[in-house]
């Protein structure tokens, strides 16, 4: 009779996760017991406080790295641990927490109303119906968005931390489900938002099924879902079983590629980015991408590292397609949010180039890129959400004409962020692209160099896209002066300012973060 082995839990190491989930649960209680007038303020404050406390806990947890939440099976000497608290995991957790602070602050923007300005007071009402008008007049608010966002952040923090495929699947669901809901709660252009939410949900469910199917095949191959066992099974396993390994690895990667919006699994990205409330789009673009790249790194470097020759070619094809399709289709876009969505797709391709480096440099470059891109993109979407015409967001490109003359500061900030997306020196985008490409050239061999050349050509294409917007803002006449930049409250101003300053700081003085990313680039398995 085998005895029951209790899981060893290092509570300090998982404290950040516990704080985030705990804050979400308290948020649900706030929802139940606090009056409508004060709920918004309390929820937003609680969420930000929880995120900051969790960030402090991440710093404390750096002294408690190691495998936790599991035990070593004495009979077989297998390491059965659910979480791996290591450098990349903690780096991603810290980055996600800081990015979500900005994301939550942007979501909390009220613009003088009772609740968040961008969220509908009643999700189920038909757009333009009387129920909707009544609920807006009654001062109803959807402050559930804060607990939902917190749970999503918790899932994102778990995503790069988990040590097995089942945990990764659960984390994937925990981070996605709140995002599907948040996408459908836009106050304006409700039909577009509901459509986006449904599309995102259906395609997300498909990708989860792919991931799960891949997990099943890999379990069939290795007899275990732990990354360590998987890696060992691949190096020891018979080649005749590759019929399970190759499709399994492929399907699991499909599930993850979907989350980063890599071509050909990108179809949801433009629609979801356009339909979602703009602060949610920024949050989604920055944080989901960071978390999913953390998970891809863990899978590629600790789980399937020994089977690399089986799937690297597939990854290279996906990276090339993602860069080319993202950049080329960005040229044809006429809607600002869709354009930034295609820009996000092309950035996913650039980051994949770093993943293919298969080196510690590759890991640190990916970590740096996701942080640099995250801060710029949250600030950019926050600005997009504040350029309004007649009360609703002016997302069509033609509405941005002449913005530089009427609102020089806003247009200047936005132009700077666009230059960061393009990868112009003195912005974080340049340093990020530089480290990713140099990692690929350094250890990727001829394929790496080829990928970098394609990446540079695609960057040049996207430079054209961004410069076109800058030219539009500064050198063309406004059709009329009804397009206005709504002056936000201090919280959104703060998050735009921080996002822009980080973009500048990482461009001028990247050494500190690069150094941190370098030191955090060792996986524990």
């Amino acid at each position, binding site marked *: 009779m085998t005895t029951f082995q*209790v899981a060893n839990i290092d509570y300090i190491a998982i404290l950040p996760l516990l704080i985030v989930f705990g804050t979400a649960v308290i948020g649900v209680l706030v929802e139940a017991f606090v009056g409508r007038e004060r709920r918004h303020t309390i929820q937003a404050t609680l969420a930000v406080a929880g995120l900051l406390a969790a960030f402090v806990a991440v710093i404390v947890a750096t002294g408690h790295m190691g495998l936790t939440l599991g035990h070593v099976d004495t009979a077989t000497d297998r390491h059965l641990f659910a979480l791996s608290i290591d450098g990349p995991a903690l780096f991603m957790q810290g980055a996600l927490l800081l990015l979500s602070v900005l994301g939550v602050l942007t979501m909390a923007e009220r613009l003088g109303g009772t609740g968040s300005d961008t969220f509908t007071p009643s999700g189920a009402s038909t757009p333009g119906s009387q*129920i909707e008008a009544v609920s807006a007049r009654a001062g109803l608010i959807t402050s559930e968005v804060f607990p939902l966002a917190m749970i999503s952040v918790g899932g994102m923090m778990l995503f790069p931390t988990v040590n097995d495929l089942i*945990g990764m699947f*659960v*984390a994937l669901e925990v981070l996605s489900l709140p995002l599907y809901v948040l996408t*459908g709660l836009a106050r304006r252009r409700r039909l577009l938002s509901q459509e986006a939410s449904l599309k995102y949900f259906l395609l997300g469910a498909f990708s989860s099924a792919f991931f799960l199917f891949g997990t099943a095949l890999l379990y069939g191959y290795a007899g275990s879902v732990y990354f360590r066992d998987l890696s060992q099974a691949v190096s020891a396993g018979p080649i005749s079983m590759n019929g399970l390994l190759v499709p399994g690895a492929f399907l699991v990667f499909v599930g993850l590629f979907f989350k980063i919006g890599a071509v050909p699994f990108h179809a949801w990205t433009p629609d979801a980015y356009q339909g979602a409330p703009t602060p949610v789009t920024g949050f989604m673009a920055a944080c989901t991408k960071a978390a999913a790249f953390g998970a891809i790194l863990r899978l590629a470097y600790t789980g399937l590292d020994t089977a690399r020759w089986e799937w690297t070619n597939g990854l290279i094809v996906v990276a090339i397609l993602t860069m080319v399709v993202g950049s080329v289709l960005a040229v044809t876009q006429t809607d600002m949010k869709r354009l930034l969505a295609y820009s996000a797709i092309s950035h996913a391709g650039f980051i994949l180039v770093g993943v293919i480096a298969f080196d510690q440099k590759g890991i640190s470059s990916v970590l740096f890129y996701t942080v640099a891109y995250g801060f710029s993109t949250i600030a950019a979407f926050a600005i997009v959400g504040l350029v309004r015409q007649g009360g609703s967001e002016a997302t069509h490109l033609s509405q941005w004409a002449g913005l530089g003359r009427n609102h020089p500061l806003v247009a200047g900030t936005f132009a700077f962020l666009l230059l960061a997306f393009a990868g112009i020196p003195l912005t974080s985008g340049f340093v990020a692209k530089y480290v990713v490409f140099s990692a690929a050239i350094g250890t990727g061999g001829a394929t790496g160099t080829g990928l970098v050349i394609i990446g540079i050509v695609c960057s040049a294409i996207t430079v054209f896209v961004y410069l076109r917007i800058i030219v539009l803002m500064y050198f063309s006449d406004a059709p009329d002066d009804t397009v206005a930049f709504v002056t936000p409250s201090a919280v959104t101003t703060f998050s735009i300012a921080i996002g822009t300053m980080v973009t500048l700081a990482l461009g001028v003085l990247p050494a500190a973060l690069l150094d941190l990313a370098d030191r955090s680039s060792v996986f524990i398995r």
Partner: protein
Amino acid sequence: MTTRDIVFVVVGAITGLSALLAVTTRHVVHAALWLLVALGSLAGCYIVLGQELVGLVQLLVYVGAIVVLVLFALMLTRAPIGPKDEIDTPRWQRAAAVALGAGLTALIATLVIPVLGSQLVDLDGGAAAAGQGSSAGATTPGIARAIFGTWVWPFELLSVLLLVALIGAFAVSRLVLGSRATRVTRATGAGDSG
């Protein structure tokens, strides 16, 4: 033919019959209730086969949660519950569904029966085997050891997932509550029909 065989055949027949009724009835609530009977008697099948944990989980998850969820969804979305011609599936769809279902059954049967059909499991030895089963075994103590030892974190995390599903459902489906709003809702409803 032992008593167990007879009980299994009876419970199996109830399962099959109620499953058939669940897909043929024209009332959506009746369908949900027949589904309840089908899933409940399927749990009976598991228990007859000596897998009491699977049976109980079947009761808890499917009967207790899924069917309630179906009814809950009908309630939240205020779906029409009587038979309605305009939401009825067309004849060709039903024929296609029958063909697909029969095809899938045939496929699984041709795959599973030759492979597993000749294997016999001693049900009465189950209790003795459970005592010495390994931690990875499919016995109840083995599953308990795995869930609360190795898999405790994903297991606890699933409760977060259920919580978020619950909050999400309310955030999406909530309509205005309160007297003034209800009056307006009624007024618009009357205006539409009149």
